[in-house]
């Protein structure tokens, strides 16, 4: 297995969920919360500890949209493309974010792992459409221009950190 990977976090999470197969989704959620994605190393480890096949864990992880097998950026920008946001022009906002960060439909995360841009089907804030979410903060009534300003602000935050 991967000797250089520290499994203590995974062990703790497994213990929290009593190593129960049925809680695999919750276990993966906690692992993702910690690493911001699902590191490949944890799959064979989980397979052994939970007595499941690695293919099955992979199968579960790839079924659900929220799991990411690739490292995500420090800022995860989710652009809502629910019905309400869509009819109020969420697409140009998405385009602007991608353009500002050099991302595309197939490339969601910047190489420096600072930003991830993705779409979600609804954030449940339809009254404020179009909305986006950066990590846990919701930004409402977005426009492409506001998107550019936001990126500028976030980049400054990164520089000052």
């Amino acid at each position, binding site marked *: 297995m991967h000797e250089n990977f520290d499994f203590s976090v995974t062990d703790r999470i497994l213990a929290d969920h009593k190593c129960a197969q049925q809680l695999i989704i919750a276990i993966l959620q906690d692992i993702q919360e910690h690493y911001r994605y699902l590191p490949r190393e944890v799959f*064979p480890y989980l397979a052994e500890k939970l007595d499941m*096949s690695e*293919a*099955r*864990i*992979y*199968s579960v992880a790839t*079924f659900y949209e929220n799991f990411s097998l690739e490292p995500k950026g420090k800022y995860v920008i989710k652009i809502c493309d629910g019905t309400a946001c869509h009819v109020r022009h969420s697409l140009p906002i998405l385009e602007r974010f991608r353009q500002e960060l050099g991302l595309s439909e197939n490339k969601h995360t910047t190489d420096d792992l600072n930003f991830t841009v993705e779409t979600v089907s609804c954030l449940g804030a339809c009254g404020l459409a179009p909305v986006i979410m950066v990590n846990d903060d919701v930004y409402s009534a977005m426009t492409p221009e506001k998107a550019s300003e936001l990126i500028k602000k976030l980049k400054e935050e990164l520089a000052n950190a």
Partner: protein
Amino acid sequence: MANKEFITVDGIPVPIEGEANLLEVIRKAGIKLPTFCYHSELSVYGACRMCMVENEWGGLDAACSTPPRAGMKIKTNTERLRRYRRNILELIIANHCNDCTTCKNNLRCKLQDLAMRYNIDGVRFPNTSGNARPKDESSDSISMDPSKCILCGDCVRVCHEVQNVGAIDFAFRGSKMSISTAFGKPLAESPCVGCGQCVAICPTGALVVKNHITPVWKAVDNPELKTTVQIAPAVRVAVGKELGVRDGENVMGKIVAALRLMGFDEVYDTSLSADLTVMEESAEFLERLEKGENLPLITSCCPGWIKYCENKHPELLSNVSSCKSPMQMFAALLKDRAKKNGEKMFHVAIMPCTAKKSEATREEFATDGCPDVDAVITTNGLIRMIKESGIMFDDLEPEAVDMPFGTISGAGVIFGVTGGVTEAVLRRVAATKTRAALLSVANKGQRGMEGIKEFDLEYGEKTLRIAVVSGLANAEKVIKRVKSGEHFDFIEVMACPGGCINGAGQPYIMHEERCERVKGLYEADRLLSVRCSDDNPVISELYENVIGDRAHELLHVHYKKK
């Protein structure tokens, strides 16, 4: 039951006799509904939607997952149903690589068959099979072509439910869904044991057995190479239908004749080395019993099981018999002889098994860097070679295998069915070998198609606990019990349900036909004059003149923890 309950299928009353679903009842009416994902031996998946039938209110039910209720009136062939089935087929075909003529599963493909049955004469959608992942040729046993996969999930269920291997599963979802190993790793790097049950069940050419026919022809055509071939016990009763004989009929003599006609120099029967296995394994078993160590002894003939054990239970490897499989024993003897005689020899094994292809490439079974078995051909491969040769199989006169390995025992022949190895060992260790004694051995509990068979055997002053298992999920159940402290003395494990007669290298059959093959092997056993391995004169001859004190080198192997 005095008052049988009936359902009406296309106007014909059909009795309900404990069937779990409509599909099985409808089959009794002589109607074969189209299905891709229904298999009586797997869980109901209900996803291909081909078996929809119309109820009396005009609603549609999937027959595979609807329980039969008395009084139901079912129509199986209406204009609507035909239209939906055609549309579903068209949707599948639009996402399927349609290179039928060059497909290894050509003419054996269920999709092809149903497309013909439903008269699909055009597809209105652009073909998207090109988006699939590339072919995976990494395994020695199986090749996987996602562009031909119709996502019926049969392979996933057989791999998990029947074999507990779980090498493959669904990945992603919706139109991006595929069948994949974890992270799409090559099959060879997955826990796949090469049993090939997924191939056997795959309705299309998405999973096929690796084909090694070309190097075999090359060797046969090379005058400088001596070509030898061994034929495994289960093969003789399975070439059946495709060559115009009844499935289950023992056509060993015809196979030998065919192979000679093709140009093989020497043709042998693996049953002979199975006798050797019996001798060695019995001795090993008695020794362990005496010392009381490494019990239970677990059989080692099945390469699928060996790989499974290495992957999941490496700590049990010391319990596994150190005997090589019969195939490898025979190959070792032949290659040893060739070396002595300074011959260049190409050795082919004809096996019911796909995992044997991987076994042959293991480093443990190479001499001076060359594999003892140069090529493994499956039963299906043999059928193809016979067809390719243009041989009229049905007309062949049976021939005998070559000397000096020509005499076999019935004990070796029954290796091809679950319980056979156990019975052969029991015959070997039985105190008397009268007909009555052999009959009594036959009824101990090792025979039959159940996945797990357990029985006690009085042996001297001891009572031995014996288990006979086929199907790796069943093996797992027994192994779990062993690990939790339950005592067994001897466990026979075969990866394929029912043993080698149901190997994935054989033409695919359902349960009833399997029983025919089993009958065929037991019949072959009964008709042989030698029934016990230790009575086989060739065996004592071999021990005396060939093996001598080199049993360990030629006949044994030690699988190491990886």
